[in-house]
Each structure stands twice: as structure tokens, then as C-alpha cells.
């Protein structure tokens, strides 16, 4: 099933439409992505779903069974046709013969009526024919005509012999006996009998003459009954197979999604420095879907295709090897043609993708920058560029579209060619008695069944390749190294003395940003972290929370190295209120309770009151049950921050990490936030990423960061006296004001 998402972006192709062709999916052997290690990935996939393998095997057996059952259908249907043709032919031969007999009897009677004296000389005359009788008026023109015009030229002598032998009055047991007698006398009858195809002749000749032979409805009915059973059971089998595979595919997608989600929480944060959220999301949305679709459809399709291919070949050979050979001669031609087309179309397809990237990229860029485009009168320039890209896209798009669309007519032509060959050659062979009409009919169907999988080969290999690529990505993610625990201790009662000793850290080993940092913070003190934007102020926080591991040195809380703690128990002692307020979609109540999942409603309300959030929550429709939607766009940034503060209050940690609001909050809410934060910080060791000068000035310790490294530390006064970076940072703000004022 197709689940069309627009979310994730992979780094490779441009724009919002990754991978899939712009003309509706990779068709006609379009190049897809390829796995680096195809067989390795396949093995992994098999191992991953080993519990489903019995089910898959059963499905496979059912699939093969279904194919084998249906494989015989054309053949049996051909038998019905043969039976039908036989019956109809037999009946019409009988009808013609009896009619002829009637006519001849009539003529015999007419001749008998001719006076002997006139008849005898005529019989002696070698040149006298039936026509003479008509001419003389002994025979009515209509009677003569009913025997056929050629009959009129039969010499009367021959007719006499026939009449003497009793051919006209004698009764025969079978059509054959009668025909034999008739054949010698009548060239007309001989011709008719000769036209009966060899295969049917024997059986027709054996037909008794006493009753008019009918089409053998009982025989045909039997055949149809057999067919109904075959078709019905094949349908049931194929449904069971589909049912099983749907289960396998869905169970597998479920497990993949679950494992990916579990893995998300187990990977170290540093992993996400190299991998975007979009890439991880794409695993869940696109890759798992690709694998599941392949499992659901393509896998059984591949199997049935292969079985059908060989089965049809076998059945064709059974009917006639000459026809099989003739039917297959065109195959290499077909493959050659397809290869040529695919090769060319791939080139245009690649070009089309490239220009589509340009066009879509341009659209995104210009729309995103629309205000600037307007302000700087860039519309014309942008339109000009767009038209250029768009025309290039058009040129490659229609060619790629046309060429990939060629596959279908070519294949149907090949199919028709085979059809023609089968009809003509089959016609010959039937006339010669080697096969029957029913065989032709069956052969046509087998040839079609044989050709079909061949057309699918290109798309199947592509599907397999892109599936392998998807599986490779998923496994690549699942196999990432997880965060390792380095200790198992849980802090009992945390005072909040934090000590950094010669801490050294870099996000990548080759780029150390914190070189040698030491500081001692006593319980209840406030630490302000300051520095220009992008200086890496959150780094310290991440180290304290052990989101990242330090390269050297030691961070200890109450004298215990944080490495000795279980990560979860360490983190439960530290509360965090970041400016990037993360709330999940759910009610406000649930969001606050996130701080401590077992908190009662009363505790939630109390925390909200402490955080100055109670008032605004109660003004919302539904109050605490107000649902925050996906991007939390229905409450303001400042309100969100109040909620995160409430969440932290509920968690009641010994240590606090706070991120002060900057610009995005209105003044009134900012005052509320300030108040809430002050309450929160009471009696807790706090690390504040500070923007407000008052916070900074009042801090017990200021850490000054630049380019990730802590370059200065001390109190406000100490740092000003030092007259270093902090001093210049602090002074610069008032310098301008002074300059402007003056």
C-alpha cells in the first residue's frame, strides 16, 4: 500500500520528491537506488524475520500450488474446445452425408422412372452425364442442383455402377464406411471428407450412422466441472497465500517500526549530530514501507512468475516443440529491443530527475525568500531562471516519458507477433493432424503467460534492489552502537555540589572545544553561562546530563564521579528547562505530568501554580485538558516555557539547568517566566544560560564561552576587573548607546 508522505528529505535528490519518479514511480526499468551489499543485506533480512520463515514457506508452497493448478487451465479449456469442434464437425459431416444420401435416393428414383429404352443408350454413351438427364427433362434441375454442380458432370456409367453396388440404398454402420463408398462415386463428397482435419477424422469416421450425432454435452460439462474445481481451488489457495503474506509483511513492518523507535532512545546524542531527524523519520515512513510492500506483493510475484515461466514453457513443449521454438525465437529480439530502450530512457530519466531537482529547488528557494524577492524587485530575474530550468525539464521529461512508455507497445507487439506465429504455424500443424484447434487456443494463452514474467523482470530487479537499499539503511540504523552504561550507582540524597576537574571535550575527537575546564560549585549556587550566539553554551549542560561523554577529566556531584551513576538516575536529579521548549501533542495535564509520571492531579495543579501557569491554563478551552497540537502552535512560546517550568517543578530535581528566554516572549510573560524561574531555583544548584544582565550580575559564578571553549570564569566584578572578553562584551552594549546618544 502506498503511504504518501512529504516529510523526510534525504540528502541526495533535491526537493520534496525523493526517489520516486515524477511520472508515478519507477516504471519501465528505471534506475533506482542500489544496496551496497545486496546479499549481505538479504541475509540479514532473512535472519531478522526468521520467525516468519515457516509462514513464508507455507505461502510459497501455496503460491506454487496455485500456479500449478491454474497452469493446466488453458490446456483443459482447449480440450473443451476440441470436444466442441469435434461434435460440431461430426454433426455437420453427418448432416451433409445424409443430405447427400437423400438427394441421391431422389435421383435414383428419378432415374428408375426413366423408360428402359431411353436409359440404356444413355448408359452406354461414354459422354453422357447427369447433365444430359437434366437436359432431356428426366431429372428436375432442382434435384440435380442439390447434389452440387460438379455432380452434374459425373458420367452416367459411374453412377450406374454406384447404383448397382447399392450405395444408395444400402445402410452403413458408420460414417467412415459410408464415406468410403461415397468417396469413389462423388468427387464432391470426397472433397468434403478430405477437408476434415486429420486429428478429428478418425473419430468422426467411427461415428455410427443410425442416429444424428450431437455435441457431447456430457463430456464438455465434465471438463467445465473440472475447470470450475481447478479455478476455484486456485483462487482459494492464492487467497490463503495473500492472507499469510499480508500478515508476515505487516508483522515485519510493525517490528521494524518498533525496533527503530526503541533504538532512537538508545543511541547516544552524538549520533544525531551526523544524522538528521529527517533521515531517521525516512526509515520509518519510506524504508519500512518499501520493505513491507515488497514482501506483500513482489516476493510472491517473483515466485509465481518464475514458476509460471517454467510451467508455461513445459506446457508449450508438451503441445508442440516446433511451435515453442517458433514462439521463442522472437524472445531475444524482444530482450534486445527492451535493453536498447531502457538504456536510452535511463539517460533521459537521470537528466529529468536532475532538472526536476533544479525546478523544485528554485521553487522552494524563491517561495521561501519571497519577501526578499519582492523587496529587491527580483521577480523577473527569478522567472527567467525558472523558465530556463522548466524548459530543460520539459525536453528531458517528455523524452524520458516517451521512451519508458515504449516498453508496453513493444511487449504487446512481441506478444502479438507470437500470436500470429502460433495461429499460422498452428493452423498448418492442425491441418497436418499434429495438433488440434484446442491446442492452438491453449498455446496462445501459454505464450502470453510466458511473456508476462519476462516483462516484469526489469521492474522486479529494480524493486529488489531498492528494497535491499531500504533494508540496508534500516539495519545500518539498528546496528548503530548504543549508549553504554559505565556505572550502576544511584545517588541517594544529592546536595548539589558540582565539581568539574580538567574537563576536556570535543564533539568530534579531532576538534576539541573545551580544553581544560575546572570549577567547583557549591550546593545552591547559581552559575551563569554567557557568550555570543553559537558559542556552544549548551555544551556544559549536555556534559552534565551525560548526553555526551567527556574525553578526559571528571565531573562529580557531591564528590561522586557522574560516570559511576546509571545515566537515568543521574538525570532524574537534574531538571532542565530549555528555551527550545519541547512539548508533545497531548493535553496540558499530560505534558506537565511528564516531569513525574506518577504525579497526582493535585500535584500537577500545584506545580502549574508555582510556575505561574495555572492562570493562563484555566483560561484555555478545556483548561488542563486543552490539547496542544503537533507544532504546539496554539499556545504562545512564553506559555510553553511556563509549562516546561511547571514540568521541571513537578520533577523536583536537586540540580537545575535553565535557559533564559530571549526575544520571542512578550514582556508580560517574560516577567512571569522570571518569577517562575526564581521560585524554581530556590535552594537548588542552578546552571543558567543567561541573556539578562541582572541574572548574570547576580550569579555566583559566570562562565564565559567563546567558540565552545570556556575562556573566562569568575564573578561579575572579578571578570570586569580582569578586563578581558567578558568586559568588552559587557561594555560594548553601552558603548553604542553612548555613541548614538552623543
Amino acid at each position, binding site marked *: *500500500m502506498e503511504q504518501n508522505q512529504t516529510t523526510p528529505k534525504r540528502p541526495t535528490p533535491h526537493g*520534496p520528491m525523493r526517489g520516486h519518479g*515524477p*511520472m*508515478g514511480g519507477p516504471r519501465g526499468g528505471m534506475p533506482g537506488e542500489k544496496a551496497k551489499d545486496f546479499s549481505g543485506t538479504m541475509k540479514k533480512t532473512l535472519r531478522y524475520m526468521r520467525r516468519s520463515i515457516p509462514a513464508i514457506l507455507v505461502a510459497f508452497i501455496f503460491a506454487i500450488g496455485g500456479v500449478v493448478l*491454474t497452469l493446466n487451465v488453458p490446456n483443459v*479449456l482447449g480440450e473443451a*474446445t476440441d470436444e*466442441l469442434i469435434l461434435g*460440431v464437425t461430426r454433426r455437420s459431416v453427418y448432416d451433409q452425408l445424409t443430405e447427400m444420401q437423400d438427394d441421391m435416393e431422389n435421383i435414383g428414383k428419378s432415374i428408375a422412372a426413366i423408360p428402359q429404352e431411353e436409359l440404356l443408350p444413355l448408359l452406354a454413351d461414354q459422354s453422357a452425364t447427369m447433365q444430359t438427364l437434366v437436359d432431356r427433362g428426366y431429372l428436375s434441375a432442382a434435384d440435380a442442383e442439390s447434389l452440387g454442380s460438379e455432380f452434374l458432370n459425373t458420367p452416367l456409367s459411374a453412377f450406374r455402377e454406384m447404383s448397382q453396388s447399392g450405395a444408395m440404398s444400402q445402410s452403413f454402420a458408420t460414417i467412415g464406411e459410408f464415406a468410403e463408398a461415397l468417396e469413389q462415386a462423388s468427387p464432391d463428397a470426397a472433397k468434403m471428407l478430405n*477437408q476434415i*482435419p486429420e486429428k478429428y477424422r478418425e473419430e468422426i469416421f467411427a461415428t455410427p450412422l443410425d442416429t444424428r450425432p450431437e455435441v457431447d454435452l456430457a463430456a464438455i*460439462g465434465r471438463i467445465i466441472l473440472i475447470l470450475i474445481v481447478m*479455478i476455484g481451488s486456485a483462487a*482459494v489457495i*492464492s*487467497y490463503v497465500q495473500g*492472507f499469510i503474506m499480508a500478515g508476515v509483511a505487516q508483522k515485519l513492518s510493525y517490528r521494524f517500526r518498533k525496533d527503530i*523507535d526503541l533504538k*532512537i*532512545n538508545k543511541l547516544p546524542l552524538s549520533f544525531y549530530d551526523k544524522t538528521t531527524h529527517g533521515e531517521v523519520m525516512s526509515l520509518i515512513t519510506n524504508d519500512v514501507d518499501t520493505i513491507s510492500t515488497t514482501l506483500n506483493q513482489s516476493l510472491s510475484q517473483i515466485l509465481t512468475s518464475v514458476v509460471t515461466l517454467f510451467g508455461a514453457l513445459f506446457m508449450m513443449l508438451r503441445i508442440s516443440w516446433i511451435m515453442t521454438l517458433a514462439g521463442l525465437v522472437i524472445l531475444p529480439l524482444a530482450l534486445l529491443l527492451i535493453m536498447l530502450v531502457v538504456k536510452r530512457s535511463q539517460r533521459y530519466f537521470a537528466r529529468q530527475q536532475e532538472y526536476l531537482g533544479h*525546478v523544485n529547488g528554485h521553487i522552494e528557494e*524563491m*517561495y521561501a*525568500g*519571497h519577501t526578499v524577492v*519582492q*523587496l*529587491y*524587485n527580483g521577480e523577473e530575474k*527569478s522567472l527567467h531562471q525558472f*523558465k530556463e530550468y522548466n*524548459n530543460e*525539464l*520539459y525536453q528531458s*521529461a517528455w523524452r524520458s516519458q*516517451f521512451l519508458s*512508455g515504449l516498453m508496453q507497445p513493444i511487449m*504487446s507487439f512481441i506478444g*502479438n507477433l507470437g500470436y*500470429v506465429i502460433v*495461429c*499460422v504455424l498452428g493452423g498448418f500443424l492442425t491441418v497436418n493432424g499434429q495438433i488440434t484447434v484446442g491446442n492452438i487456443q491453449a498455446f496462445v494463452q501459454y505464450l502470453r503467460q510466458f511473456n508476462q514474467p519476462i516483462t516484469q523482470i526489469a521492474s522486479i530487479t529494480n524493486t529488489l534492489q531498492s528494497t535491499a537499499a531500504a533494508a540496508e539503511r534500516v539495519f545500518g540504523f539498528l546496528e548503530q552502537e548504543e549508549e553504554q552504561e559505565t556505572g550502576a550507582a544511584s545517588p541517594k540524597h544529592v546536595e548539589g555540589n558540582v565539581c568539574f576537574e580538567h574537563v576536556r571535550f570535543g564533539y568530534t575527537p579531532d576538534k576539541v572545544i573545551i580544553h581544560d575546564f575546572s570549577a567547583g560549585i557549591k550546593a545552591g549556587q547559581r552559575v551563569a553561562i554567557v557568550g555570543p*550566539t*553559537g558559542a556552544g553554551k549548551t555544551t556544559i549542560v*549536555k556534559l552534565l546530563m551525560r*548526553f555526551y561523554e567527556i574525553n578526559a577529566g571528571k565531573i562529580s556531584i557531591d564528590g561522586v564521579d557522574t560516570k559511576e551513576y546509571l545515566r*537515568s538516575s543521574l538525570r532524574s536529579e537534574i531538571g*532542565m528547562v530549555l528555551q527550545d521548549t519541547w512539548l508533545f*501533542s497531548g493535553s496540558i495535564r499530560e505534558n506537565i505530568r511528564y516531569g513525574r509520571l506518577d504525579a497526582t492531579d493535585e500535584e500537577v495543579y500545584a506545580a502549574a501554580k508555582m510556575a505561574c501557569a495555572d492562570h493562563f491554563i484555566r483560561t484555555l478551552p478545556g483548561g488542563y485538558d486543552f490539547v496542544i497540537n*503537533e507544532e504546539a502552535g496554539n499556545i504562545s512560546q512564553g506559555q510553553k516555557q511556563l509549562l516546561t517550568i511547571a514540568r521541571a517543578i513537578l520533577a523536583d530535581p536537586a540540580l537545575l539547568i535553565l535557559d533564559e528566554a530571549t526575544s520571542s516572549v512578550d*514582556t508580560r510573560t517574560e*516577567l512571569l517566566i522570571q518569577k517562575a524561574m526564581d521560585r524554581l531555583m530556590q535552594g537548588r544548584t542552578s546552571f543558567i544560560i543567561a541573556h539578562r544582565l541582572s541574572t548574570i550580575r547576580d550569579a555566583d559564578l559566570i562562565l564565559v564561552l567563546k567558540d565552545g571553549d570556556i575562556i573566562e570564569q569568575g564573578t561579575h566584578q572579578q571578570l570586569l576587573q580582569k578586563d578581558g572578553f567578558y568586559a*568588552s*562584551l559587557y561594555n*560594548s*552594549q553601552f558603548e553604542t*548607546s*553612548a555613541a548614538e*546618544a552623543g
Partner: protein
Amino acid sequence: MSILFKYYGRHFGWIVAAFVFLFIQAQCDLALPQYMSDIVTYGIAVSDTGYIIQKGLMMLLVSLTGVAAAVSVGFVASRLGASLARDLRVSVFTKVSAYSNAEFDKFSTSSLITRSTNDITQILVFSVMLIRMIFYAPIMGIGGAIKCLTMSGDMPMMAMAISIALAVLIVLIIFLLLVVQPKFTKIQKMVDDTNLVARESLTGMMVIRAFNTQKHEEDRFEQVNSRLTGTNLFVNRIMVLMMPFMTCIMNGLSLAIVWIAAISAQSVGDVANMMAFMQYSMHIIMSFMVVSMVFILMPRAVVSARRIGEVLDSEVSITDRPDAKDAGRLTGVLEFQDVTFAYPGGGDPALSHISFTAKPGQTVAFIGSTGSGKSTLINLIPRLYDVTEGKITIDGTDIRDFTKASLRRNIGFVPQKNVLFSGTIKSNLKYGRQSAEDESPEAADEAMKKAARIAQAAEFIESKPDGYQSEVAQGGGNVSGGQKQRLAIARALDKKCPIYVFDDSFSALDFKTDAQLRRALKAETADATVLIVAQRVGTIMGADQIIVLDEGKIAGIGTHRELLASCQVYADIAHSQLSEEELA
């Protein structure tokens, strides 16, 4: 859908050609079973090999004609589809380029992007399929039906058999539409839910780990995941019913045809006709299935077409007046006269009764809390939005009497959200300079470098290996926030305008760079009218005129000192940011 008709109308000739080729293709495909029937009746049944060869050659010829027609259809369809997409893209892009911000707000940028890319692709896919399959199917179906009727002379029950098969098929399709289709919508919702929870555990990673709520998140995911799996399984298991069912209908029809022939065939010719009949009936059923596919595919295309139609039909709210004149080079006396502005469909005015004057050489600063209307106010100056009441004049003329382009040439505007375009630093800095009039390239380069120096951008540009030729990625992705801001300022300065507007343009700069930049700016814009929106009181303390906005109204106008004394809102803001001695 009307869009499709309109655009196809332009290529009427091609459409006709497509139909002609489709017709030929259908006739050829339909002729083959007839030939086979003839071969059986008049060739095989009477052992006439000459006839067989003759008809065989005819079949070959017909096949060749058929493939030629099919290839031609493919050619026409691809050209039609591609040019439809091309034309639509240009129309949409041109239209959106002419949009003013109000239209962008209405649709949202991401929605406009989707409409210009994915929706057009949807239309393209649908229209190619329309020509290739959906038009073809009825031609084949009707042709097959006609053939069947003419051939079934002795066997009237044949038509009935086919009708019954079709009826069963219709019931099946209706069943699927009614039972499965709504489930698909549900599944889409569940997929979204699953993705939402997964995305949340990515974006909230730090919070989740900080609160140790991994288990909670996993439970949430488990819930949506198993619900999705369950529904998916249900739908898939119904969908796999489709194929066996279809096969049963088709095979069953073949059997019915054989049986009917068995009880009513009179001659070998009738049996041969039966064989052809079986093939025609397949054509009829297949074409019926394709047509019914339209009902499944169409809704998606219709939605896309409607979304594109909305873009194309949307009226552009800000256009040049018919008698608009070129603004030329303005001096820059900007006046707001009792301006009130409400966002289209936004209810309460975002700005009410704003009046003030800004003169060349003056700096006017705007301050106020978020949502107080600062950005809205300055967006009115280059006519990103038009005033609802009152008017804005520059040099005494209503800005709506100028052409938009000439007005904007006079305004150096640095928006809050800085956007760079892919290209080089140089191409970005020169973006504002439309035509370099009679300036020599060297002089233009020199001016650009000067602008970069004032914006404090020269240092980091020149430290790059390629200097001004350094590549800038799409949207300026490879330039840091602070650098982007400085480049945007340089871009505005390079325009050399009588009016400059800075919308919170110094926020990403550290204090030091901020100060240096503003000192250099002061000298450069000595003769210009400068408007600044700021968050930090410290940034604007020295402005000639500070306008304090509160909920869209002017709460106070004056200098820093005056406002401290007279304006409570200003005093609140100032006190929350600075200490007493700093305020002095």
C-alpha cells in the same frame, strides 16, 4: 478539473491526434481475434493452408500498424503531459511570484511549494494515464462489445453472460469503494499519528532522556504502531481478496462462454467465433476495470487540480494602480497618517491610528512586546501589505500612487528572516542592484565591498578561500546566522537608498559586532531615513525618535529620556532589561 480542460484546449490538435491513434490501435488489437477465428473457420476447418498464410500476413500487418499507433499514442501522450506540466508550472510560478504577502499568509509557503511541485506532478501522472489507458479502455471496451454483438448472432446468451460478469464486477468495486476506501483515509491518519510520535521522540530527545520517560514514549509508540498494524492488516487482507476474485470472474466468464457455445453452436465457424469471443470479453472486462480505476485515481488528481486552481484563481491583493507613476529617486520624508491595518480576514486591526513622521538623517526606532505590531508596521512601508485605512506618504505622495518596483528601489529593507539565494556571496550582495546603470563593473564591485565593510561582513568574506566568489547554498544554508544577517545588511546597503528599514536585524550578532556595525552604519546612513525595530532597549537608546507600540497602538513617542518619564510600557521594558545606572 477545469484546469485540465483549459490547458488541454491549447493542444487541441494533439488531442485529436491522440484519439485517432488510439482508435487505430484499438481497431488493430480488436482485429486479431477475428483473424484467428477466420483462420480456424476458413483455413483449418477446410485445410486451406493458402488461406492461413494469407490471413497470417494480414495479422502481421495489423500488428505492425497497431504497434506504430501505440508508439504514436505514447509520443503524443508524453509530449502532451510534459507540456501540460510545463505550462502549469510556469502559470503557477508566475502567479505566485506576483503574490503579495497576504496571499502567502493565506496559503502558507510550504503549501504553495507543494502546490507548485507535488500537485503538478499528480496532474501530470494522471493526465498521461488518462490518455494512455483511460481513454483507450472505453474505445477497446465498446469496440469489443460491438464485435461481440455482431459475432454472437447464433448465440444470444453470450451477451447475457458478459453482462452478468460485469454486474458482479461492479458490485465488487462498489464494495471496495464503500468498505476499503474509508479505511484508507483512516490508515493515512494512523500513519500520521505514528510518524508524529516518532518525530516527537526525535525532537524531544533531550527532554525524554532528562526525565527518563523512554518507557512512556515507547508505550505511546506501541499504541499507535499496533493500531496502524491492525488496520493495515485488515485492509490488506481484503485487498488480497481482489486478485483471486478477479481471476475467478474472468475464468468463470470463459467457462460460461464455452458452455453457451456447446449448447448453441451450429458450425465450426461458431466455435471459432467463441474463441474470439473469449478474448473480446476479456477486453471488455479489462477496460471496465481500467475505467473503474479512474474513480480511485481521480479524487487525488481532482484535489491537486483544485489546489492548483485556488492558486491560479487567487486575486493578488497588492497591484500597481493603473495610473501609478515611477517614484524615481526619493528624498525619504516618510509619513504615516492615521494608519490602521488589519490582516485580511484577521478580525481586529493589528495596527490602529498610527501617525508619525520620519525625516532624512533621522533614526526612528520601534519597540514593544511580541505581537505589538512592530514588524507589521514596517512591512507596510514597501507595500508588503497595504494599509486598511489612512495613508503612508513618502515625499508627500501616497505610496500606492507609485509603481511597486520603483517604490521598493528606494527602500533598503532588511527583514527579520534573512534569506540568501544560492549563488555566490557576490551575486547575493548585488541582488538589490537591479541594473548597474552607467556604473563600471569595477566601481560596482568597489561599492559592494564597501557595503560589506560597513556591515562588518568584509572580514569573514575575505577570509574565505574564494572571497566574494564563495558559493552560497540554497537558502544560505552554509552561512551561519550572524554572517547571514551581516550579508543581508550589506545587500541592503549596496542598494544605496534614501530609506533603510532594519527589522530586528542585529539579534544574531554578538554585542561587539553589533556595536561596530551600528557605528559604521551611522556614518553611512547620515542622510537617509532609518527605521529600526529592536528588542533590546540598549540598542535603541540613542535613536532620535522611539515609538513604543502596545497592542497595535502607539503607547508613546519620544526620546529615551522622555519615554522613561512619560511612558509606563517603555519604562517596564527598560527596567526589565537594564539596571538603574545603565538606564541613566
